[in-house]
C-alpha cells in the first residue's frame, strides 16, 4: 500500500518515478522524495512509507511537529492543512532536471561509449553574445588574441601547435586542449585546476603569455563598443561585467557539442555509418583496454589518470617540462603525473597530442598510449584500425560556430 501511495504522489509530480528508478534503483535507495503538483510542497516521504521501521519523520511543512510519527495516510490529510496554513513554501525542484535524468537513462547501456546529444536549455541570446566575445580580440592586452585564436574551430577547437602561443608570440608550456565538447569534461585544463568553464575562461585572459590582460582593461575596452553594450543589455539587462562576459563565453562553449559523428550513428544502430576497419578498431579499442579510461560520451574527459601506467614515458623525452600533472594542484603524491584523460572526440583534428604536444601524428599517439598505458605494442594494422575508429569520432563542426 505504501509503495502505491508513493507512486500515486509521484505520478502527480513532474518527476517521473520511471525516469529515476532504473537509474538509481539498484540497490533501492534508502529514501525517495516526492513532490506535489507545481512543486509547492516537497515532502520527504522516505521515512513515511515505511512506517514500521521507527524512523522519525522530519516534516517540511513546518506545521507538523518535528519528531511526530506519521502514518502515510495521515500525510495525505495533513498536506492540504499544510497548504492552507502555508507555513513553509517548500523547494521548487528536485535538484535534478529532466534533461539530466534523461541523460542517465541514455547511459544505461552495455556500450562504454555513448552518443552525444544536442545540448539543451541554453539561452540563445547568451550563446550568440558568447560567440561574439569568443571571437573578440579586445579580450587580450594588445587586441591581438581572442579565444578563437587558440581555439580555432577549423582546427578542431585547438591551435594545431605543440604548445599555445599567446600575445607577442609568447609560447606556453602546455598543448592547447580543444574547446569542443569541453563542457563534458569533469574539469578544465590538463591538470584540472578548475572545475567549470566559467572559471576556465578568465584564466587565459589573465595569463601574461596568453592574453595578458585583466578584467578592468577588458571591460573598459568593451564598454566603448555601443553595439556590444546594447547586446549585453538586451541579454542580461545589465552593463558589461566580468562575470557576465564569462557566463556568455561559457554558455557559448557549452553549445559546442560535436554531434552527428559517424560513430554516434553507428552506436545508434547504423552499422554502415563507419567503415568495417573502424568497427574492428572499436572492438580493439575495447579489447586492449582503452575504454578503461576513454569511455563515456566524450570518450574520456571524466577522470584523471596517470600518464604512464605500464611504462614511464617521461624520461625518454628531452623537452619534458613540468610533468607533475595534477600534483601541482592537489599536492598529493597519488596525483603525481596524473592528467585529465582527454576526450577522444575529434581527436583526429587536434594534433599534436598529449599535454606537451610531444606527438605529431595520431598513429604515434596511439602507439605511445598503448605502450605507456597498456604496456602493449600494437601492429601497424591494429594502429590503422584504431586510427580509423578514432577518426569516426569526429563530429560535425557547425557553421554557426565559426
Amino acid at each position, binding site marked *: 500500500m505504501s509503495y502505491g501511495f508513493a507512486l500515486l504522489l509521484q505520478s502527480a509530480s513532474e518527476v517521473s518515478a520511471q525516469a529515476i528508478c532504473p537509474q538509481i534503483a539498484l540497490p533501492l535507495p534508502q529514501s525517495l522524495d516526492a513532490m506535489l503538483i507545481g512543486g509547492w510542497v*516537497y515532502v520527504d516521504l522516505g521515512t513515511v512509507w515505511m512506517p514500521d521501521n521507527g524512523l522519525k519523520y522530519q516534516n517540511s511543512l513546518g506545521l507538523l511537529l518535528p519528531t511526530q510519527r506519521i502514518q502515510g495516510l495521515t500525510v495525505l490529510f495533513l498536506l492540504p492543512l499544510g497548504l492552507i496554513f502555508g507555513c513553509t513554501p517548500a523547494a521548487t525542484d528536485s535538484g535534478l532536471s529532466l534533461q539530466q535524468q534523461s541523460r542517465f537513462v541514455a547511459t544505461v547501456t552495455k556500450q562504454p561509449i555513448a552518443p552525444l546529444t544536442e545540448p539543451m536549455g541554453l539561452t540563445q541570446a547568451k550563446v550568440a553574445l558568447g560567440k561574439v566575445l569568443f571571437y573578440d580580440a579586445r579580450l587580450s592586452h594588445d587586441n591581438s588574441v581572442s579565444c578563437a585564436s587558440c581555439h580555432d574551430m577549423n582546427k578542431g577547437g585547438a591551435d594545431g601547435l605543440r604548445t599555445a602561443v599567446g600575445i607577442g608570440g609568447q609560447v606556453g608550456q602546455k598543448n592547447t586542449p580543444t574547446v569542443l565538447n569541453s563542457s563534458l569534461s*569533469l574539469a578544465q585544463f590538463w591538470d584540472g585546476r578548475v*572545475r567549470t568553464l566559467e572559471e576556465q575562461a578568465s584564466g587565459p585572459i589573465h595569463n601574461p603569455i596568453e592574453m595578458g590582460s585583466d578584467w578592468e582593461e577588458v571591460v573598459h575596452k568593451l564598454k566603448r563598443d555601443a553595439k556590444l553594450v546594447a547586446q549585453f543589455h538586451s541579454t542580461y539587462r545589465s552593463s558589461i561585467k566580468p562575470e557576465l562576459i564569462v557566463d556568455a563565453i561559457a554558455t557559448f562553449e557549452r553549445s559546442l557539442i560535436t554531434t552527428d559523428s559517424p560513430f554516434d550513428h553507428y552506436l545508434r544502430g547504423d552499422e554502415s555509418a563507419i567503415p568495417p576497419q573502424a568497427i574492428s578498431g572499436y572492438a580493439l579499442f575495447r579489447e586492449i583496454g582503452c*575504454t578503461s579510461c576513454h*569511455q563515456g560520451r*566524450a570518450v574520456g574527459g571524466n*577522470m584523471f589518470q596517470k600518464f604512464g601506467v605500464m611504462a614511464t614515458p617521461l624520461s625518454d623525452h628531452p623537452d619534458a617540462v613540468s610533468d607533475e600533472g595534477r600534483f601541482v594542484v592537489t599536492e598529493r603524491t597519488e596525483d603525481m603525473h596524473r592528467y585529465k584523460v582527454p576526450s577522444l572526440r575529434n581527436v583526429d583534428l587536434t594534433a599534436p597530442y598529449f599535454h606537451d604536444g610531444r606527438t605529431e601524428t595520431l598513429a604515434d599517439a596511439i602507439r605511445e598510449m598503448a605502450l605507456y598505458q597498456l*604496456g602493449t*605494442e600494437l601492429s601497424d594494422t591494429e594502429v590503422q584500425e584504431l586510427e580509423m575508429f578514432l577518426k569516426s569520432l569526429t563530429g560535425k563542426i557547425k557553421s554557426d560556430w565559426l
Partner: protein
Amino acid sequence: MNRLLIHSAVLAIALIVLIGLFIGSTDNSSRAYSEFERRIRSLEHANLNLDSSVLALRLGIQHNYDQLTFHETELQNSLNDLEANLGIWHENPGVNQLATILQKLGESKLTQSSDFKASHSIVKNSLAAFSTIARRLQNSNNDEQKSLITDLESCGLRFYTSGYNVDELAFRNAIDAIMADEALFADHQKRSTSLLLRHSYKLIELRNDMQQSLQSLVQTTVRQTTEQLKERVSILYHHNRERQAGYRIGLIAVSLLLFAYCVVQAFWVYKYARALQNSNQELEKRVEERTADLRDSKEFFQTVLDSIHAQVCVLDETGNIIEANAAFKRIESPSHTGDASPNYLEYCNAPEQNQSIANGKVLGKEIRAVLNADKPYGTCELNEFHIEESRTYQVNVTRLPESSLGRVVVAKSNITDRIVAEKEREQLHKELQDAARQAGMAEVAAGVLHNVGNVLNSVNVSSTVLRDRIDSSPVKQLVRAADVIQGQSDQLSEFFASDPRGEHFPSLLTQLSSNLDEENKYLAEEVTTIAKNIDHIKEIVSMHQSFVKKRGVMETINPIDLVEDALRINEASLNRHQVAIVRNYGSSVPVIPMARHEVLQILVNLIKNAKQAAAETSEACIQLIVSREDDFVTIEVRDNGIGIPEHHLQKIFCYGFTTKDDGNGFGLHSSANAAREFGGSLSAHSEGEGTGATFKLRLPTKPETKEVDATPV
C-alpha cells in the same frame, strides 16, 4: 487636549508594540529553512548517488565513469551551494563547524572518488588484460604450463574478488611459479607472459588501493554529518518558530487589547456624540431663536433706517452698495439701487454722467479716505441740483468695524431746511439781541433808579428830619428875643436891669445859644449825611456811566468797613423797624481790593432785603458774618425772617423775580451778576418758609482783572 494626548499616546504605543510584535512574529526562517532543507536533500542525493555509482562501477554494472563524474560534480555543486547559502544559520558556530566538517568530508570523498576512478580503471583494465592474455597463453601451451596459468588466473581472480592476504600470497606464489617456468618465456610468448605478469603485479599493486579508496569513500561520514547539520538547523528553526509563535500570541493579545480599547472608546465616542447631538439640537434651537431675534432686530433696524429721512447706505470696500434704506432707495437714482449692487464710488466720481451732483468728487474722496482707514469718519456737504430746487446734503461717512456686512456707512441728510432755519434763527437772534440790549438798558436804568431810589429814600428821610428840625428850630425864639431887644433898643440897659423879661434874657440867650449850637451840630450832621448820600448817588450814577466804559475803581478796603457803611446807609430804616443787628466779624479778615460802590450796593441790597424779611417778625434780627475762606472773604447776611420756599430758591436770582408787591425783581439779579463779575459769587440759602434766610457773598482776595465787554448796554 489631555484626552487627545492620552489617546494618541496609547495608540502610538500600541502601534509600536504591534509593529514590534509583528516584526518578531514574521516568519523569516521558514523560507530559509526550506531552502536549506532542499540543499541538504540535494546534497544527500548527490552523496547517495555517488555511493551508488561507485558501487555500480565496482560491481561492474556501470561501464563508464560519466555517471560517477556527474555525481561528483553534483556533490561538489551541492557542497558549494550549501556552503554559500547557509543563510541565517551561518552565525551559529555549531552549524558553521558542522558545515566546515561537511565540506572537508565532501572534498575528501571527491578525492577518494577520483582516486577510485584512476585505480579502478587500471585494475579493471589489468584484470581484463590478465584474463585475455591468460586465456591466450592457455590455448597455446601444453598442460603443464596451462595448469600454471590456470592456477595464476584463478588465484588472481580470487585475489581480485576477496583481496585477502592469503589469496594475495597464493597469487604471488602462482606468479613465482610462472616466472620459474622457462617454457613460458620462450621467445614466441615471452612478451605475452611478461605482460601477463605486469598486469598481475598491477592487480596486486592497485587492487587494494582501489578497495581502500572505495571503502574510505563509502565510509566517509558525509551522510551522518549532513544528518547532524540538518538536526541542528532543525532545532534552531523550531526554536525560531516557537519564538515567532510567542510573538504571534502577543500580537493577537495586543490586538485584542487594542480592539477592546477601541470598543470602549467607540462607546464613549457614541455617548459623547449623543450628548453632542443633544447639545447641538439645543444650540440649533437657540440659534434659531437668535436668528429670529436677529431677523426681528434686522427688520426693526431696517424699519428704523427706512423711517429715517436721511438716505443711508452701506458700502463694501470697493464702494458697492450692499445695503440701503428706503429713503436712499426712493431718492437716489434707481440705477444705483439695482440688484447689481452698483458702485457708489464710481457714481460719485463720475459727475459728468450725473450732473445733478455738484461736488461728488469730494464725497468720493471722503469715502475713499474712510475706506482706506485714513480716518474713522468723514463728512462733507453735497449740493445737488434738481429740477425744481437746489438741495444741500450733509453726508457723513462712517467706518464700520471689520465685518462682513460692509465697510462704510454713508448717511446723506437733506439739510436745506436746516440751513434756511439757521438763517432765520440768525435773523431772530439779531432781533433778540437788539431787544435784549434795550431790555438791558432798561435794566440798567432800573438798577440805577433803584439804587438811587434807595439812597434818595435816606436823603428824603434826612431832609424830612432837617425840615422838622428847622421847623422846630429855636431860631424863632431867637428872632423873638431879637425883636424884643430891637423893641427895647433904647433902654436896653434898663431892660436888662429892670425889666423882668430882660432879667430872663441872659439865661434865655444862654439857653438859646446852647440849643442853637446843638441844633447847628445836629443839622450839620444831617447835612453831612445827606451830602454823603448824594455823594453815593453821584457814585451810583457815575458807576453806571462807567459801566459803559470800565469797571468801577478798585479800592483796597476792609470788608468790615464796607459792611458798616452798608449798615449805616440802612440805619434809619433799621432803626425804624427796630431790627437788632448782630455783628459777627472774623478776626483775620484781610483787606481786599474791590469795587467799593458795587459791593456796597450789593450789601445794601442784601441788608435791605433782610430787613424787609425780618421786619414782619417780632424780635427781628439781622446777623452779619464776615469771615475768610481760603482765597475768599465771605459776607453772610442772615435774617430770621419769613425765609424762602425751596421752589423760589432756584429762581431767586433770576431777572424779574420778586416776592415783594413793589419789587421789580432786579436787585438780587444785578447783585448776583455783579458778584460774578468780581470773580466772586452770591448764593442764597433757606431752610424753608419761616426759618429765615442766609445770603452769602463771596469775594475773592485776589480778584482777577476781568475784561469787561466794552459795548454799551
